[in-house]
């Protein structure tokens, strides 16, 4: 066991699990309470367009995917202000167009042999030092913004019309939450892949909601649960030679089922 921990790739995987768990615990809570899950799904899948651009033009993967996600996020945010009734259509469009763009660009890249499955389903054991550096910066930015403007973000998330009346810049904070969600999705792709990222942004948060009396505690509980699921998934993935992303999601889902059953039994009694 201790020998396993001495491998650099295992150490990186554990550090990445800690960082991404905190990031998804905080941002996932905001995604869930703001009812942005479908919207985040759209951003996650459109991220494949950014991956395709990075591969085709030989750009740094994290940077180009992040910029592409920010572009898509701002587009969706603007649409939600002007064309709220058509927002679902736009999300569906970015979802499909982003993925199609990514696949075509990868097809057009000569001699490309990399394993695209790792972007779709994650590869925690392949996290590099650069990835960890990027995750650390994002975590610091998220903690800085969310805790400095906690009251404004709480107010916008709970009752945006009332927040606006009290002088809170609701559009600014709504867009900020969306951009942070986009960046969270980019770093989570490494851990669970873009197809499964929504599960990491929702399952731990849903379980945390059973016993959270405030948004802050929801963020803390969700981060701890996410870390536990990621580490258990990582152990299963390493020992049984399974894909890390699906292992983490299956572990999370089992605990969700247990938590839900426990809640129902408690309510019935």
């Amino acid at each position, binding site marked *: 066991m201790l020998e396993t921990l001495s491998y650099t790739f295992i150490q990186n995987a554990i550090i990445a699990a800690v960082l991404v768990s905190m990031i998804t615990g905080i941002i996932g809570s905001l995604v869930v309470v703001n009812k942005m899950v479908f919207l985040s799904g759209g951003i996650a899948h459109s991220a494949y367009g950014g991956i395709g651009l990075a591969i085709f033009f030989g750009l740094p993967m994290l940077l180009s995917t992040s910029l592409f996600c920010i572009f898509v996020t701002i587009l969706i945010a603007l649409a939600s202000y002007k064309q709220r009734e058509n927002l679902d259509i736009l999300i569906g469009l970015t979802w499909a167009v982003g993925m199609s763009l990514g696949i075509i660009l990868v097809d057009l890249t000569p001699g490309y042999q990399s394993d695209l499955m790792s972007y779709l389903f994650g590869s925690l054991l392949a996290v590099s030092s650069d990835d960890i550096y990027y995750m650390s910066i994002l975590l610091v930015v998220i903690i800085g913004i969310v805790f400095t403007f906690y*009251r404004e973000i709480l107010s916008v998330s709970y009752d945006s019309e009332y927040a606006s009346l009290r002088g809170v810049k609701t559009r600014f904070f709504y867009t900020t939450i969306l951009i942070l969600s986009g960046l969270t999705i980019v770093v989570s792709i490494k851990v669970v892949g873009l197809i499964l990222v929504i599960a990491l942004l929702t399952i731990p948060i849903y379980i945390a909601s059973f016993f959270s009396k405030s948004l802050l505690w929801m963020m803390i509980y969700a981060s701890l649960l996410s870390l536990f699921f990621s580490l258990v998934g990582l152990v299963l993935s390493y020992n049984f030679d399974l894909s890390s992303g699906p292992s983490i999601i299956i572990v999370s889902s089992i605990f969700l089922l247990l938590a839900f059953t426990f809640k129902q039994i408690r309510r019935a009694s």
Partner: protein
Amino acid sequence: MQTTTNRAIEVSNLSFSYEKQKVLQDINFTIQEKEFLAIIGPNGGGKSTLLKLLLGIHTLQQGQITIFGKHYSKQIANIGYVPQNTNINIHFPISVLEVVMMGQNSFKKRIFGYKKEEKIQALETLKKVNMDAFASQSISELSGGQRQRVFIARALFSNPKILLLDEPTSSLDAESSKLVYETLDALNKHITVVVVSHDISIILQHATRAFYINKKLFNHDLHHIQKNHLDKDAHICEVELLEMLGAKTC
């Protein structure tokens, strides 16, 4: 109940349209300080639009609104607002105290956490609506009537001189509605209360004056209605009321 002649709200020649659909037409009225005013009328008649114009949520297209003699946009801080809350997620993880402190006009403290004085002020405000015992509870654990009193406390947190309420009892049972209106009666000793509601019989027991709005405005003093009708029969029907207000002829 009216103890002063100071004008709290003055609206003149107000008209408002959504795209080409006229919702309010040539509205003129004055509300005195410490009045308890009811705004009634059919759905789509312009009641909520009028409230949103007073709050500055909608931009004024035609006419003038003054609050305590000044342009309404400079007096938003003096207005407490209790919205319909139809879009609020009732399972949101937030404590009663946190909801009340959202009533702050601007969040002066830019780092995480709440000042001790703010918490004390929020507790004092909760006392005004008899909800201080629930301060640390999650809002999702409260009944509809208790939640509504918390929203009234949120509106009162910044010590407004006018309280506007949009359908405050629309989803409440009779007992909870009664408690909400008793709270409003107590508050009305110090501030002006304006309620938009469909609940005509209960409104008549508490309000001193009513506006019936259906694009245009009809104004009526309710004192004699209360004396002559409500003491005998609290279940006054809408048609009767409209006749009394003269709105049937519109």
